[in-house]
């Protein structure tokens, strides 16, 4: 039997053994998984990101502008030295600030305007009325500046019902997703490993 399949099957069973109870086989696989994942990430990040996006323009093409992100990136490692760890905040501030700046127009356009527009267009049909009612009552539910009582309480209550419909549908899909993952693993065990199925 292929050594790769045997290894995969063994480690799969180690992890499934957790269903009985926590045990050293599971713990072994769990720690090995985290270690390998981190090692994998390190290699991929350096090979496909650090080298082509920083080292290539800086050292091969001689683009000196890249010294700035290189230094800012290096600053991140100063977190390990308590006395100067604050310097890493400058690098973090750049990413967080730039990310925040770029997100504002994008979110206004994609998440608010486009969504509002889509709700208005279908307001004439029964489905459109359901959508508008669900949207308005859900938004009312999330409005916490006013107490959910009296005339304001009723739509907020209806909003929770619609939210339950969404959470229920999401739960249904979550079950579906998890079962699909199990199908994948059992297809491997019954097929590639035991050759019971194609």
């Amino acid at each position: 039997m292929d050594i790769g399949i045997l290894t995969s099957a063994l480690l799969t069973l180690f992890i499934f053994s957790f269903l009985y109870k926590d045990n050293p086989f599971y713990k072994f696989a769990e720690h090995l998984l985290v270690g390998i994942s981190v090692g994998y990430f390190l290699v991929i990040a350096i090979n496909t990101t650090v080298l082509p996006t920083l080292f290539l323009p800086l050292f091969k093409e001689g683009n000196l502008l890249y010294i700035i992100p290189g230094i800012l990136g290096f600053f991140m490692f100063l977190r390990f030295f308590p006395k100067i760890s604050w310097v890493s905040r400058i690098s973090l501030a750049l990413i967080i600030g730039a990310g925040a700046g770029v997100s504002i127009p994008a979110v206004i356009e994609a998440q608010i305007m486009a969504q509002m527009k889509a709700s208005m267009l279908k307001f004439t049909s029964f489905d459109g009325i359901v959508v508008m009612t669900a949207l308005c009552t859900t938004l009312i539910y999330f409005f916490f500046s006013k107490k959910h009582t009296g005339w304001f309480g009723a739509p907020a209550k209806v909003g929770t019902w619609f939210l339950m419909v969404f959470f229920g549908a999401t739960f249904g899909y979550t079950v579906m997703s998890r079962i699909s993952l199990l199908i994948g693993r059992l297809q491997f065990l019954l097929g590639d490993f035991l050759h019971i199925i194609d």
Partner: protein
Amino acid sequence: MKIDRRIIFVLIAISVAIPLIFKIGLPNKVTKEVKMVYDSIEELEQGEVVLVSFDHEASSLPEIKPMAQAILRHCFSKNLKVVSFALLAEGTAIGDEILRNVANEYDRKYGRDYVFLGFRPQYTAAILGLGEDLHRVFPEDYKGISTSKLNLTKEIKNYEDISLVVSLADGDLPTYWINYAEARYNQRVAIAVTAVMATTYYPYLSSKQITGLVGGLKGAAEYEILINKPGMGSKGMDAQSVAHVVILLLVVLGNVSYFLSGKLRK
């Protein structure tokens, strides 16, 4: 009524394993949202470029792989060019392998018909950067070849040369594609996500910010019907059905025993 959880575990394992061994062959039906993704690829002309982004981790491979295979098979069967990369590290090795294997099925040549660019961790910067200059975001492909030298990528400047983006995701990365590629650059985006994420994207489907949605293994099975190539998705549908029924029966059983015990207490 108390059932030991291990009995439930065994029940679930059996409900998935038995239909995998003894096939029932339940008929599957194609939904509108999956057909929309199919149509958005079908309407492309030969030679147009599709960007496939592997935005997922290894954990969701049983769901992502069938979707990726079905969509890539459709692209290559139509002679479309595929440029691909990953926004999550684990999607890199997986994406590279799936792309290469499917391309080989159709005798497609690396560099001319398809290219794998590698991994970029900062989603916002990568997606926005592709709107300006692909060569700046990806000076080299995954193998270290300059993207200015590869036949396929040297012709691509930015989203203007890309007809469709397909995000294969197990998280919220399609939201970034919508916020930054669709909203800012009017880039057409289709998504194929794990089932657990599917309900999240229905508002974008309704607002036409995405051209379609393939959801999980079921979505993959539907796509396989559309391209007439049964694969891993179709094979899992019997097990999926039986497991859902078993879980629903457990819920009913739990509720019946709950209400009966309540009445007995009264």
